[in-house]
């Protein structure tokens, strides 16, 4: 970041001396503050400016989580979001009111490289595409500690019952079966959101019915199961003692070092492992959240975040040029070089290298076979209630039962649906 600033200053100085032969453009980019995000964007910016010396990029970090949602919304609402923002795709994108706040990117040349599955999650209600993918797709499943599995002679569970049986053995051995980190409340949602493949396997129309107010979490047994799993883990006492205050970083440390056997998490977490406990990176394996049936087990997938151009940007042309570069196979290669491969990129002609960490290698087969992945609910439906993370904390801490939690979440969702002005609500 410092070097970028340096370049910008230098370039500005040169331009001044030269009597400003060509207009100098500085694009401001708003990022979520994640270490991986910064590394990828810095590499992309450096490569882009090398090719286009008249355009430089200035990176700014915002907080993550709901704090960050708020920053992005207020900035867009007040027309001060800069030239490029990086933000979630799917339902959170829909909550940005994209038709009026974001620039239309439907005719961006690079859209030809982008897989349709991604385009659909950055398409505004009026049918126009407003973003491009940034980073790899992620799986929502469970990290496990390989040495501990070998020590206890466990095998990868393919049903929930097998998973619980493994947990029982881990507990017997005196280790923590499931690392639980409610200190970062968002981590509590994995058992519910990551179970969505299994929901769809049983109720293929759940997403449409849910959006149309015809299906509910509380009254659909398959959807309720995620909440029930949380409750079971709590009731069996399979969590670490400080589960209420432990954080995401604690969770990754525990599962990487074998303090805990499992940690349900998205696959972007590999960056944290590389930073904090690199010596354990190959001790981690990955499997999809097991459901009721071994034959229909698959991975729930999170689409990558996207880059958008705020409609109020003064430099839309330059920003489009940059986005075109990011969504090219070359941009994709630069990102992989910067942070290593953690999952498939949704850009045609972008191959992952052969040597990936073990947990990534565990995840890739799901993508390679047809029908073994399904998008998370937030990419199929525009509604996601803001209180889910508090509700899952409650169910996972024994404050509320699974059934009550699911019913409460159904109520929470109503607010969001009405705010979005959806029909039938």
């Amino acid at each position, binding site marked *: 970041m410092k070097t970028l600033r340096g370049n910008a200053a230098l370039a500005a100085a040169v331009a001044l001396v030269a009597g400003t032969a060509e207009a100098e453009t500085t694009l401001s980019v708003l990022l979520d503050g994640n270490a991986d995000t910064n590394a990828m964007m810095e590499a992309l910016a450096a490569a882009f400016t090398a090719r286009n010396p008249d355009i430089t990029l200035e990176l700014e970090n915002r*907080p*993550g989580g709901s704090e960050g949602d708020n920053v992005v919304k207020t900035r867009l609402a*007040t027309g001060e979001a800069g030239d490029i923002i990086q933000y979630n795709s799917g339902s959170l994108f829909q909550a940005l009111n994209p038709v009026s706040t974001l620039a239309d990117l439907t005719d961006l040349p690079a859209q030809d490289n982008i897989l349709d599955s991604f385009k659909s999650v950055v398409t505004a209600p009026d049918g126009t595409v407003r973003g491009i993918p940034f980073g790899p797709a992620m799986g929502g499943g469970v990290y496990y500690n390989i040495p501990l599995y070998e020590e206890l002679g466990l095998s990868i569970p393919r049903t929930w019952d097998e998973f619980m049986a493994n947990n029982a053995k881990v507990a017997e051995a005196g280790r923590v079966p499931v690392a639980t980190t409610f200190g970062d409340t968002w981590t509590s949602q994995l058992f519910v959101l990551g179970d969505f493949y299994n929901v769809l396997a049983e109720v293929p129309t759940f997403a449409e019915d849910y959006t149309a107010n015809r299906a509910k979490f509380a009254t659909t047994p398959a959807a309720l199961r995620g909440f029930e799993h949380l409750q079971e883990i709590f009731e069996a006492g399979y969590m670490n003692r400080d589960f209420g205050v432990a954080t995401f970083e604690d969770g990754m440390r525990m599962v990487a070092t074998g303090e805990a056997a499992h940690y349900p998490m998205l696959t972007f977490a590999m960056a944290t492992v590389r930073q904090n406990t690199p010596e354990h990176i190959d001790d981690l394996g990955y499997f999809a959240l097991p459901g009721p049936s071994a034959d229909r087990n698959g991975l729930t997938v999170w689409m990558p975040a996207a880059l958008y151009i705020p409609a109020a940007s003064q430099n839309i042309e330059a920003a489009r040029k940059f986005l075109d570069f990011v969504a090219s196979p070359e941009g994709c290669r630069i990102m992989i070089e910067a942070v290593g491969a953690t999952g498939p990129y949704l850009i045609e002609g972008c191959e992952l290298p052969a040597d990936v960490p073990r947990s990534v290698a565990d995840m890739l087969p799901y993508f390679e076979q047809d029908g073994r992945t399904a998008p998370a609910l937030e990419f199929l439906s525009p509604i996601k209630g803001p209180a889910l993370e508090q509700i899952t904390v409650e169910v996972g801490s024994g404050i509320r039962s699974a059934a009550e939690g699911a019913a409460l979440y159904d109520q929470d969702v109503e607010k969001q649906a009405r705010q979005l002005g959806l029909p039938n609500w």
Partner: protein
Amino acid sequence: MIFILPFVYILLMAVKTKQEAALFLFAWPSEWRAWENLVEVVQTRNYMLLLAYFNSTVITLGAVTLLVIFGAMVGYVLQRRRSPWNRVVYVFLLIGLMVPPAVVPTIWVLQNLGLFKTIHGMILIQVAYGLSFAVLLYRSFIASIPRALDEAAIIDGARPWQVFFRVILPLLKPVTVTLIVVQSVAIFNDFTNPLYYLPGRENVTVQLTLFNFQSQFQSQYNLLFMNILLVTIPPLLVFVFCNRQIVAGMTSGGVKG
């Protein structure tokens, strides 16, 4: 002891190494790292803390100055000039003192005035929220200044603003000092209002740095606590130098049976 120990803990945590601080122990540090930690905190995110100190200082100075002048002027007129309006004004002052501000509509007003996300907007917000207190405080103090003083000045041919600024304001010094101390600490320590009305990296205030660094320093508690220590220093200085004044000022106008 209960009152001192947490501060000792903050101090000890602030000078430890990263590894030792992560243990959370209430123990003497094996290695004294005050300076290194200090430098690292100050340098974080491109010297964000210095920017925050600057912003917080500007907001505090601006708002307190306006509060003293506005508060004294209103208190003066309100106390000296009897009119049926006084009761209405008084009710509004009480409302201003007690009622929590309506946040989102305020943002809406600020946006329409082009003051949202600006330092001067923030200053005016602090003035609006602190005004009731200032006026009530001045009004009860001005009651103790004899009217004969203003009348003498008027007979000498002074204009109203001259009477106020040359005669009355200097006499208000004790209560002004109290107001300055109490309000500057309150505004400097304010977290909620900048959180709502002053988003944006270039606008950070000291309390917000603390909050933002909380996630960034997740595994570096020594730096987080060094930051707490640094943020605590300005009120500590105010406290050391004005301790007597605060206590005297707050109780003198005060509670008489």
